[in-house]
């Protein structure tokens, strides 16, 4: 066990340009299985960045040198607690860039932050990485020109070589945003507040208020690029032997990976297990991989040229489902035909316990285009004082299963409540 601890750090009135970083940590990639490596902790506490400009630069860069395979376990855990950012602007920069590390950012305050020109608060693009962001307050945030607050978006081809511990089990890379508030946020020009392609996504108990969006996204989730393909192979511990997977069909939970992640973070483990349990109530066979938006509050949102407020795409993975449960959407105005929750290419969906109040937008509460829809649960939905909004639009080539119950409407002003079309219903 080794690690790095950084405490009580402040940087103010500074300017960093052209590959300048406050911290750069480069780890040598494991050669032949993470079992031969120890678990390292990088801990940052009480960080303060104020009145500082980053341009083609960043605060923290964590990268893996020559990654050789997709590891079952991330051997380095990076934690930031009590992080304060104020009056900070970025261009072509990221505050935290972390590829191949478990990142846990908690107890943070970001006030008056401008992310411009492909900038990010958190970014991971080259190695699918675990992300936990909890207990944060974000105020007066401006995202412009393809910028994102949190972006865990694998954008390069996956490695063909796999760690042996992955054989037959799920790649475990949770992405959790929990108990955060985003107030007074301006999002424009292809920017997005939160983006994730992780296989387990939890957006839970967050509040999104006073948000103005133009041609951008709030939550863009899904698109997990599966590690297994016809060309992938497993790399034996002796480095010389390789073999191809015999996996056919279902994956199982990788208990060793989950233990490695959550042993140090029991509170996050509870959130993770509860989320899987919530999905399992509806769809016990498909709770290995999931996208869950749960108990969030969205209020005072104005959008222009936005297709969906919460967008979930490309999550047709075996043993995977999406869930939008117990969320509150209130006082939302869209100048165009926006859907509240929408997307494409899902296999299974749970939409339960959501409330839509004082919405004025010409779209659907739930809108999906997909191929085969195995299961859809639409349950306990409350509409109150909505204008133009319809409940659900499903366009599927094949729709196997549906269950609609307990839909309550007040002040309904839409002609069609529900529109489901499929070639094979």
């Amino acid at each position, binding site marked *: 066990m080794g690690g790095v601890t950084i405490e009580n750090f402040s940087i103010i009135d500074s300017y960093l340009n052209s590959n*300048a970083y406050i911290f750069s940590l480069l780890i*040598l990639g494991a050669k032949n299985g993470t079992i031969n490596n120890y678990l390292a902790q990088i801990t940052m506490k009480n960080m303060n960045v104020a009145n500082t400009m980053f341009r083609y630069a960043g605060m923290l860069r964590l990268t893996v040198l020559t990654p050789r395979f997709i590891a079952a376990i991330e051997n*380095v855990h990076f934690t930031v607690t009590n992080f304060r950012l104020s009056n900070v602007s970025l261009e072509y920069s990221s505050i935290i860039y972390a590829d191949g590390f478990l990142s846990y950012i908690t107890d943070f305050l970001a006030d008056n932050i401008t992310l411009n020109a492909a900038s990010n608060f958190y970014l991971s693009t080259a190695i699918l990485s675990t992300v936990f962001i909890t207990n944060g307050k974000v105020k007066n945030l401006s995202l412009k020109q393809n910028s994102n607050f949190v972006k865990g978006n694998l954008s390069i081809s996956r490695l063909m070589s796999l760690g042996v511990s992955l054989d037959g089990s799920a790649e475990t890379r949770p992405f959790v945003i929990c108990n955060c508030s985003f107030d007074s946020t301006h999002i424009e020009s292809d920017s997005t507040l939160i983006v994730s392609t992780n296989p387990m996504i939890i957006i839970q108990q967050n509040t999104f208020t006073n948000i103005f969006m133009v041609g951008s996204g709030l939550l863009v989730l899904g698109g997990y690029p599966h590690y297994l393909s016809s060309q992938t192979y497993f790399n034996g511990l002796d480095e010389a032997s390789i073999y191809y997977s015999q996996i056919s069909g279902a994956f199982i939970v990788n208990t060793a990976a989950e233990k490695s992640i959550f042993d140090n973070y029991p509170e996050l483990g509870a959130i993770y297990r509860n989320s899987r349990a919530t999905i399992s109530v509806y769809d016990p066979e498909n709770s290995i991989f999931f996208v869950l938006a749960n108990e969030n509050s969205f209020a005072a949102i104005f959008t222009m040229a936005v297709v969906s407020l919460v967008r979930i795409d490309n999550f047709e993975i075996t043993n995977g489902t999406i869930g939008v449960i117990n969320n509150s959407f209130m006082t939302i105005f869209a100048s165009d035909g926006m859907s509240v929750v929408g997307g494409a290419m899902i296999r299974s969906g749970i939409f339960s316990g959501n409330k839509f109040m004082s919405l004025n937008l010409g779209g659907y509460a739930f809108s999906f285009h997909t191929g085969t829809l195995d299961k859809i649960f639409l349950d306990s939905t409350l509409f109150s004082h909505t204008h133009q909004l319809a409940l659900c639009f499903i366009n599927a080539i094949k729709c196997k299963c549906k269950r609609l119950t307990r839909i309550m409407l007040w002040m309904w002003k839409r002609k069609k409540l529900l529109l489901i079309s499929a070639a094979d219903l």
Partner: protein
Amino acid sequence: MDLIVDADLTQKQGNSSPTLDQAISALLNGPRFIDDENTITLRANCARKNQHFPHLARHITGITSRSGRLKIVFENIPPSISDVNDCDGLPKLVLANDSCVSISNLDSLTITGLNIQYLADTCTSTLTNINSITFSSFCFNSSASSNSWMNGATSRFEIVNVTTFSMVNAIYFYDAFREIWINETNEVIFDRIVLVTLASIISSSHSAFFVTASNDSINTNLTITDLQVICDPRALVVPSVVETLFIDQVSISSMKVSNCNFSAPTISSQAIIRTAIASDFSVQEVFLSNVIFGSNPSQSIFSMTAVLNSVLTNFHIMTLYSPYKGIILLRLYFSTIKSREEQIREIIPRGLGDGI
């Protein structure tokens, strides 16, 4: 034996000598000290006067292994050596090509209140096999006096096989031509060192202090307190102040760098503090203010390679300006490989190079 150096004298009188080299020579019988206890006090009138070690008796040793003590002290030391002008009031100990120092096999060596001019480039000054070495209230100037260093010149002041090596309250004028090289020493202590980065600083592999343990059986701990880097106002290369390799623990408490322009071009990777292969590294109370970086993307304040545990606390950074090429405050090359041998084989060649 207690001796006096009195600059007003023209020749030796009793236990007083006009110069340091004469006083030291009087303590010796051949290369060995006559007595175990040896103290040389430089009178106040020695201030600003050049002093040397004996030209001919270059190697000085104790009577038996690690026995005997030598203390050289200036009697009119300012209360604190904190300003470069304080150095002018001290006697100059000139370690030049004909007066390198070579001392071994003592219990202790103490040098207090001297302005050491380390100018040698054809001989190496060495202090070896000594229990305790203390330099205090002194200045150390290793800046180049000629260009001969470019032709294979010797560049090190060597401290080897010492139990405790201490440098306390000093001003170190540094231009990267020469370094203090400390090897196989158990405890290394730098307390209240002001490092003056000179305008003539070059881009080289010579650190102000290089601490290593080439013998695996030696555990080395480095403790630094109150380190301050001050700079010539012109654009400089980032000074390599401390570099360590294969030592166990590095502890730094209070480090200040202010009003420095490190934007001079360089082709080498430069770091103020660089540590490779260590068990523990800790630094607390770091102040950086009004510092400019640029021109080289491999510059950093701290660079650590394969350090098992690092703790960095209380960093205060104000007006850091890096307008051209990137500065990295803390650069870490890290490995979770369990095998130390494999770490050395895999990481060191990468981490110490410029290629990453």
